[in-house]
Structures are given as structure tokens and as C-alpha cells.
């Protein structure tokens, strides 16, 4: 209890907690879950965009998309490393992802159906992710905070690329405009869901906020996202698929419809449009790759042994 108070005092003072510092079990567990889920999201997040790499319309777009997906794998790597400092290995985390014990962001259970979805994912999904992540640069756990700083830099670049794709489509042919609108129609509500249900319904939030693992409420961030995104949609000449969307002068923000939370909970339960495919793909990659991981480890062991023998 004294330790706990001292710990909280450090956090309140804005100090960073480092891996070798004492920390409450709850803090450690919550962080492992949160960083792990974030890492898994980067990994699974490769799939919906990877789905269009082989169909990218130009060499330039193909290169940009490849670079982006590569960045996501890199983010996964940073985050697994941050999680490892808390005493859990990447393989353990991976297995929890693969057997469903750990989750990833539910947005990646939505399919990418046209090239415009590459725009919408960058603009809306990365946009929402950044909204979540920017405050986390100031999170209390040092390695997590440092990972988020690196990640945020790249993500905002990705978001601009996404918006650029949307712009090209919106200024393009009729078919392209239709494609862009269709992508917005499909990704709008799932993006709003990315901030999670209203905090009124969330149990863990208060503790996480006290620990500075969570920096803002879900509703705050969602409002901020809507307020930022609606003018961008207008600039593109696209229509946000929400008949109730109106500017509220008084609160200085938009009023908007809540997403269908029953859909959100179905997706969490595994009933999203692509949950099965995503987990199948990751399980297949892992299982098919077992011989490669084992082969490379066996070779490394042989080399170490030979080196030792030579010494």
C-alpha cells in the first residue's frame, strides 16, 4: 500500500515508469493487455491493406502501400519489444492472439473491397488511431511512451497518404467518386467504433486513467475525431452517411449518430465480416512458418556450437 502510493505519486508527478521499477500487478497486466492488443492490431492490420498490394493501380501506389504495410510490421515489432520489457515474450503474445485469448482492433475485421478502401483506411482508420495514440505518447510507462512517439510520426504520414488517395478519387471519374463515397459509407461507423463504447459503460477506464495508461475518455476522442473528419469529408465533396449529423454551436462540435453497438459487440465476439479470415490467415502464416523458424534456430545453434568448439 505504501509502495502503491509512492507509485501513484510518481505517475502524478509525470515521471516515467521503467521496466525494472516496481509496479502493481494490475498495472503490469493492464499494460500487457493494452500493448499486446495494440501490437496484434498492427500485425493483423497488415491484412486488409495487404489485400490490395497486388492490385494497386500504379507502381507508385504499390510502392507507397508496400512501405506502409512494412511500417505496420515495424510498429508491431516496437510494441512487442515494449511488451517484452514487462516479462511476456513475443511468442507467448502471438499464441494468445492465434487462439483468440487476446484481441486486436475490431476495425480490421472489416473487408477492403475497392481501391478507395485504401484511402478510407488511411484517412479514417489511421486518423482514428492517431487520435487514440497521440495522447499515449505521454503515457506513464516509458517503453510504451517511446514506442508511441516513433509510431505517431509514421502514422500521421500514413493518414496524409490515405487522404491523398481519397482526394484523387473524389476529383476523379464518376466511378471513382462513387467508389470513394462507397468506402466512406462502409468505414464511417466502424471508425467511430474504434474509440470503444461510451465511458459510462466502461469499467476499467477510471483506473487506467489514474495510471495514465489511458489519457482521454472514449467519448472525448470520438467527438474530436468527428469534428476533425467532417470538414475533411466536405472538402472532398463526400457525404458522411449520417442523416443526424449537425453542427452544434453551443458545444462547439458536431452532433452525430452513435454507431450500432450491437454490431460492435458481435465483431468483438468473433462475428465480424472477416474475423474468421483474419485469424485463419495469421494461424496459417504461423503454422506454415514453423519449419522456417525452427530451421533458422537450428542453424544458429550449430554456428554457436562451432564457434565455441573453435575457441
Amino acid at each position, binding site marked *: 500500500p505504501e509502495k502503491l502510493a509512492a507509485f501513484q505519486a510518481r505517475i502524478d508527478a509525470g515521471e516515467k515508469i521503467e521496466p525494472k521499477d516496481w509496479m502493481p500487478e494490475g498495472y503490469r497486466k493492464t499494460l500487457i493487455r493494452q500493448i499486446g492488443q495494440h501490437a496484434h492490431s498492427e500485425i493483423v492490420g*497488415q491484412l486488409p491493406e495487404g489485400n490490395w498490394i497486388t492490385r*494497386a493501380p500504379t*507502381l507508385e501506389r504499390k*510502392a507507397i502501400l508496400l*512501405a506502409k504495410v512494412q511500417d505496420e510490421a515495424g510498429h508491431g515489432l516496437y510494441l512487442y519489444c515494449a511488451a517484452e520489457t514487462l516479462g511476456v515474450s513475443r511468442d507467448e503474445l502471438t499464441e494468445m492472439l492465434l487462439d483468440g485469448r487476446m484481441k486486436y482492433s475490431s476495425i480490421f475485421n472489416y473487408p477492403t473491397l475497392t481501391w478507395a478502401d485504401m484511402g478510407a483506411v488511411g484517412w479514417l482508420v489511421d486518423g482514428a488511431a492517431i487520435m487514440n495514440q497521440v495522447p499515449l505518447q505521454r503515457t506513464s510507462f516509458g517503453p510504451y511512451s517511446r514506442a508511441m512517439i516513433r509510431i505517431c510520426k509514421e502514422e500521421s504520414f500514413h493518414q496524409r497518404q490515405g487522404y491523398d488517395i481519397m482526394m484523387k478519387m473524389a476529383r*476523379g471519374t464518376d466511378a471513382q467518386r462513387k467508389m470513394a463515397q462507397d468506402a466512406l459509407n462502409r468505414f464511417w461507423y466502424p471508425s467511430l467504433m474504434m474509440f470503444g463504447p461510451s465511458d459510462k459503460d466502461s469499467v476499467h477506464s477510471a483506473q487506467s486513467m489514474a495510471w495514465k495508461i489511458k489519457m482521454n475518455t472514449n467519448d472525448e476522442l470520438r467527438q474530436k475525431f468527428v469534428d476533425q473528419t467532417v470538414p475533411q469529408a466536405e472538402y472532398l465533396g463526400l457525404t458522411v452517411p449520417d442523416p443526424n449529423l449537425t453542427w452544434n454551436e453551443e458545444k462547439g462540435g458536431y452532433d452525430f449518430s452513435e454507431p450500432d453497438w450491437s454490431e460492435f459487440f458481435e465483431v468483438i465476439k468473433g462475428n465480424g465480416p472477416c474475423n474468421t479470415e483474419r485469424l485463419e*490467415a495469421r494461424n496459417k502464416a504461423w503454422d*506454415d512458418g514453423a519449419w522456417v523458424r525452427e530451421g*533458422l534456430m537450428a542453424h544458429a545453434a550449430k554456428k554457436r556450437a562451432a564457434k565455441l568448439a573453435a575457441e
Partner: protein
Amino acid sequence: MTTQDALFEYLLRLGDNTLILGHRVSEWCGHAPVLEEDIALANTALDLIGQTQMWLGLAGEVEGKGRSADDLAMLRDVWDFRNVLLVEQPNGDFGQTILRQFLFDAFHFDLLTGLTKASDDRVASIAAKAVKEVTYHLDRSSETVIGLGDGTEESHTRMQAALDRLWPYVGELFAADEVDAAMQDAGIAPDLSELSSSYHTRMSAVLAEATLVAPEGGFAHSGGKTGFRHSEHLGHLLTQMQWLQRAYPGAQW
């Protein structure tokens, strides 16, 4: 065949090799055996697509009909592609992918090294840029082939199977024809027979360390770099790669 025609053909060979191999490698995105490989494969694909932009861009310039690199990549049918058969072979398991990469990288590295001395500055400067990237590709694929060849029994067996499967596509890399001859005469391309001997020396060293044995017999498939007869795989690859451009002609992306 004029030198210009030969140069156009030759640049298509260079650009189609990197385009098709880059495409194949990019198919791995999100499905690699380990995260570091996801990153490395994406990186390799990215380099190859970048080189494609340069080679096909120059090809369009040399042709002089106003075709861009994208036009050449997205709007030709199978018979107009000039890549070697090796690079259009399907990914298979990771072993087949990395072995294909190694067989190509070793050739690619020597070829580009030769091309840095090309009498045509445009060619030389693209080669100089590309060879830096390919040095890294070759290091990496050699190392991985060695690691997996000399790893577990299973990894060894798979790598040997991949080598047996892909070896008949090596010969085409060095089969010189009139295009190659014209390019050599023009002081642009290196001598393929010299490349071949350096290739086989390197190959022997790496395969020995990997405890892999190249199959006997010199049979070699052909038809890719001349475009006479590609494999059935290329057409399927194009349906994916070109669909969007074909479906929405003239749109800007």
C-alpha cells in the same frame, strides 16, 4: 534490329524481371513465417518496384511512343512481357520463395555490377542505384538459404526440393540471344558467359555451405526473356496486377 530496338527490349527485360519478382514477393505481405521476414520481404518488394519504375520509365523513353512505366506495367498482355521464367514461378512455400530470390539475386547482382559500366549513362546510373539495394538482397537471401539448408532435417529437405524444382530455370538467365549480343556490342551489357561462370562459382560456395546439391544435367527452360512462351502463371498474375487499370481505363490514381 536497331540498337534502339534492342535497348528497348533489353530494358523491358530488366524492368519486367523486377516488376514480376517484386509482385511475387509482395504476395507474402502479412503472411510471412516471422515478423522480421514480413518486414524484409516487403522491403525487397519495395526496392524491386522502385527499380521497375526506373527501368520501365527509361524503356518508355527509349521507345519514344509516349508510354509511361505504368502503361508498360499495366497495359501489356502476356506475350509482351520479357521477364525470365524464374521470376514468374509461384511462391510455393517460404523455401521456394527464398531460393528463387537467391537464384535471381546472385544473377541480378553481377548483372547490375556490369551495367554500372554501361556506355549509356542512363543505364549506368540506374544500375548504380539498384546495385546497392541488390547487394543487401543477395546477402540476405544467401544467408537465409544457408540457414535453412543447413538447419533442421525438414528445412533441409524443403530447400533441396525447392532447388530441384527451380534449377531448370537458371539456364535462361545466361542464354544470350541477339538482344544480348547487340547490347554487349553497344558497350551496354556485360558478357553473359562471364556472368555465368562467376554465378556458378558463387552458387557452389553458398550451396555447399547450405549442404544443398544442384541437380545434375543442364536442361534449361526458355521462352520468358524472348516472350515466346511464358508459363501459365504469368497470366494469372496479370489478372490481379492489371485489373484496376483495365477496369477503369484512363483514370488517375
